[in-house]
């Protein structure tokens, strides 16, 4: 289909009477006025290139440069840079993500691969993984069954999801990034209804853990079951989630999301874990597993102001997180480990600290109470596709925080440019005061294909 400026009035110029001619001229002007406005343009829409294909694929290629100022004397600088007295760290990396599907009738095969590599002052690192690869069969819109590796993102929270019992933990600094899935068998049933309850949908997932299959989910050689019941009741989204199995302890969840005003959304999550296990470092350097009842919850809102600023604010209480004292004990243990290493050359304590870091103390936001806030403005000063933003995460117990201003530009078709600066602030033995770096400048360029 092609559109071009109208030329129909040209043949009307042969009118002989002046009055008629004037009338025709006026009519022509009225008819072609939009065409005059847009006369220099021609818009085309070749639909053929968008017809459905059996095989579709796409993805992005990314280049990233990071510059960090090292926070000397911090626990994670001691752990990660032991014996390497550097004050800055420059890192250059690239990654490739490819996703797609092959669909034939009611069966489809979906995949997502990711590979990345980086070189920094410490060395080279790379990875390649299958994030998603599953077959699904959909005989009717209300029923879908799938088998394979798939990612779950249960919960309504933007930065955290306490009810996401089979989710991979996301990075609150980049919560929209793709993550690796789990190998599962799933059925999904949807029913639309009339009345206040508009939709009911049930998702049941079987998640096995064997050697080389979902090994990092929990204890292996178990079959686990996770269920989500979604309801759209009046204008509110409600999820009930449940997990049972021997890889992790049984847990129950509830979340909701709804609009108080068209530009004001609120959401909440509540997770109840009757028997939550936590690995805790003891004073002597030994560790123990403590079992407690955990109530974790998240309260959040999203607000769009008249000047197009989107605000997301979330409060997260993680009952399974570490207390301020427990975290401080870990940081002291790292300091002791370094002292031992410097005094005797023995890295026994540092190795133990690294092990504890991997088991929980080193994960993003290991504490109990956090505040997340993100502000983004759409196209200020009439600059199309330009979005400045500001994100902050505050550990409410030790009052340490990160603050991340950013600029994103998507004006070049299929390109995304992002410039970010992260500033971390906190005292001794606080979460952000003990991170490896005190700040980070990051430039990321993505090309989508």
């Amino acid at each position, binding site marked *: 289909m092609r559109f071009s400026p109208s030329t129909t009035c040209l043949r009307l110029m042969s009118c002989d009477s002046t009055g008629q001619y004037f009338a025709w001229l006026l009519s022509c002007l009225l008819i072609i006025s939009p065409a005059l406005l847009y006369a220099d343009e021609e818009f085309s829409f070749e639909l053929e290139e968008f017809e*459905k294909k059996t095989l579709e694929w796409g993805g992005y290629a990314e280049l990233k440069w990071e510059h960090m100022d090292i926070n000397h004397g911090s626990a994670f600088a001691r752990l990660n840079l032991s014996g390497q007295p550097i004050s800055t760290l420059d890192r250059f990396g690239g990654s490739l993500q490819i996703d797609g599907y092959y669909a034939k009738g009611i069966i489809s095969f979906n995949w997502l691969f990711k590979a990345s590599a980086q070189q920094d002052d410490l060395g080279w690192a790379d990875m390649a993984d299958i994030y998603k690869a599953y077959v699904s069969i959909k005989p009717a819109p209300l029923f879908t069954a799938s088998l394979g590796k798939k990612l779950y993102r249960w919960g309504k929270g933007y930065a955290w999801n306490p009810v996401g019992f089979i989710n991979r933990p996301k990075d609150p600094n980049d919560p929209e990034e793709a993550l690796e899935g789990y190998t599962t068998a799933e059925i999904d049933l949807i029913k639309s209804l009339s009345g206040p309850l508009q939709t009911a949908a049930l998702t049941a997932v079987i998640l096995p853990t064997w050697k080389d299959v979902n090994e990092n989910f929990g204890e292996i050689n178990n079959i686990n079951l996770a269920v989500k019941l979604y309801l759209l009741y009046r204008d509110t989204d409600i999820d009930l989630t449940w997990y049972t199995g021997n890889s992790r302890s049984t847990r129950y969840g509830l979340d909701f999301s709804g609009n108080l005003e068209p530009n004001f959304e609120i959401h909440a999550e509540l997770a109840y874990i009757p028997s939550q296990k936590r690995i805790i470092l003891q004073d002597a350097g030994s560790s123990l597993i403590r079992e407690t009842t955990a109530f974790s919850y998240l309260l959040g809102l999203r607000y769009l102001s008249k000047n197009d600023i989107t605000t997301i604010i979330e409060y997260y209480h993680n009952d399974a997180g570490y207390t301020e004292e427990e975290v401080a004990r870990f940081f002291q243990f790292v300091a002791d480990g370094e002292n031992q290493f410097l005094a005797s050359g023995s890295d026994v304590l540092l190795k133990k600290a690294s092990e504890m870091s991997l088991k929980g103390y080193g994960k993003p936001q290991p504490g109990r109470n956090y505040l997340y806030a993100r502000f983004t403005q759409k196209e200020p000063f009439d600059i199309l596709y330009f979005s400045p933003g500001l994100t902050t995460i505050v550990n409410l117990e030790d009052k340490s925080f990160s603050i991340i201003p950013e600029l994103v530009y998507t004006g070049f078709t299929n390109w995304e440019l992002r410039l970010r600066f992260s500033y971390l602030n906190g005292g001794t033995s606080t979460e952000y005061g003990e991170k490896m770096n005190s700040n980070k400048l990051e430039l990321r360029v993505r090309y989508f294909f």
Partner: protein
Amino acid sequence: MKNKKVFFITLGYIALVLFQATVVLALDGNEILRRVDKNMQPESYEMYRKLINIEPDGSKKEFVLYTVKKGRDKMVALFLAPASEKGRSTLRLGDNMWLYIPNVGKPLRITSLQSVVGGVFNNSDILRLDYSVEYNAQQISDKGDTYMLDLKAKTVSVAYDRLKMQVDKKTLLPTTIECYAISGMLIKSLHYTKIKDFGDGIVRPSMLETDSPLHKGYRSVMIFAKVKKKELADEVFTLNYLSKVDELR
């Protein structure tokens, strides 16, 4: 005395006629609006759209969407291009709107005032419900070849509080729509052009041009293609289905 009685009877009669005329006009306005909706799209259908954002320097950015709609308030739009947006889909159920981003993997609630594409078009332009679902005709005036409908939003959740819609009398299709905020400020103007026969009795504009005094020099164009009746299950318009919309094509 008799003259006085005749005067009051006549006055009462005139008042009654004027009242009835107002009622008829009001009814006509809403009826015309329903006819406009009926002429613009079938009850249940699919279509392809291209959105072109044009900047003052002439540079353009294009988006292609596949859209399905059922009934008066169920609609889904899936981005097919550009590659950076491919796979994103938006769902509208009445006043509720969600955005699904494949990488994020879950739907997020969005508002009608936001724009997932940037530029002059916002979400309510992309997921527009039938005009008669969101607006009441408060006034209708005869402008010769066209009707001018003054429309008032039924609820505060509608993106534009008032519309001034010019409707061609012969085709009962809209030609120009001015969108006003609750303050009375003109937010944008829509111009429907290029009437096309899409087959199966669907004859409607195939192009929508938009400009806004708030974004001087910026314009957006929407081109419609393959508008076709399609039977759709209600379950298609649910959050769980958002990741599977492409399978409808």
